[in-house]
């Protein structure tokens, strides 16, 4: 075993753990913000006032965000559970580790990927959709708090209270789109490894004398 293999495996494990953990946090934020947008755009209307078209659209997007946020947390938690167990075994361990320990970690990681491949594919989709939904909410929020006058070239802020939620929505949009990119990267790497494993099965079968 080389130090390089061990370092790369450990680094990938830590990186992926961090990514999934970050997704749990942002999934929770997406859920909370989805609820906040629903409350603000539908339930927060003064009595007698009718809902504007932008309010209806924002409310609908917020409901989608709520669902996606929930799905985001559930998927992240499912992936996190397995990865945490593998990571615990390698946490704090330095090179050299026995060959069998490292290979066992690699096999467990591959098994975990096989088991969660569908969930990771869902995460890619959920993160992308969530990103675009929050981007729409963020833009809608930004348009609400600012009025741009093209004739005089000035920007007027209507309500400073809307700025944090609009910025938060844009922030979540950015994180979910970035997460989707990294999950796709992770999936691509492990799919390549799966292909390589399938190729090596011939050599292993031959060694064992298995038909």
């Amino acid at each position, binding site marked *: 075993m080389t130090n390089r293999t061990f370092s790369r495996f450990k680094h990938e494990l830590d990186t992926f753990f961090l990514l999934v953990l970050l997704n749990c946090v942002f999934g929770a934020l997406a859920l909370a913000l989805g609820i906040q947008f629903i409350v603000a755009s539908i339930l927060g209307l003064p009595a007698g006032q009718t809902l504007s078209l932008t309010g209806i659209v924002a409310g609908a997007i917020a409901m989608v965000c709520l669902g996606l946020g929930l799905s985001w947390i559930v998927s992240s938690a499912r992936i996190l559970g397995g990865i945490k167990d593998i990571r615990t075994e390698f946490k704090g361990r330095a090179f050299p580790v026995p060959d069998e320990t490292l*290979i066992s970690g690699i096999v467990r990681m591959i*098994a975990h990927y096989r088991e969660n491949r569908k969930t990771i594919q869902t995460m890619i989709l959920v993160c992308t959709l969530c990103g675009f939904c929050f981007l729409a909410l963020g833009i809608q929020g930004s348009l609400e708090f600012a009025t741009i006058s093209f004739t005089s070239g000035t920007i007027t802020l209507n309500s400073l209270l809307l700025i944090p939620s609009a910025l938060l929505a844009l922030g979540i949009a950015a994180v979910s789109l970035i997460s989707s990119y990294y999950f796709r990267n992770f999936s691509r790497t492990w799919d390549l490894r799966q292909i390589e*494993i399938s190729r090596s099965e011939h050599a*292993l079968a031959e060694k064992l004398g298995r038909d």
Partner: protein
Amino acid sequence: MKNERRTPYEIYWEILVFCKVPRSFTAIIHRCDLNSKTGQDYIGFLVSKGYLSRTTDEGKSSYIATGRAGDYIALFSDLYQKLFDTIPGFKL
């Protein structure tokens, strides 16, 4: 680890590594997360190919990896390490 999430070669590797010292059938299937039926199939195959040998001590039978098992373990380790050496890794 769930059985269907591992290839048969990964299961063979796990059994052989675990049986570097004598192990009972129950210990093997428990450690490798196999049921009795599949455990019998895997262990039976490894015994038939001479990778595992069965020993009986004071009426208790156990299995131990033979010298041949070392070749398989080495090949398996080499192939699985290459997954990290040849394929560009995942990073942020």
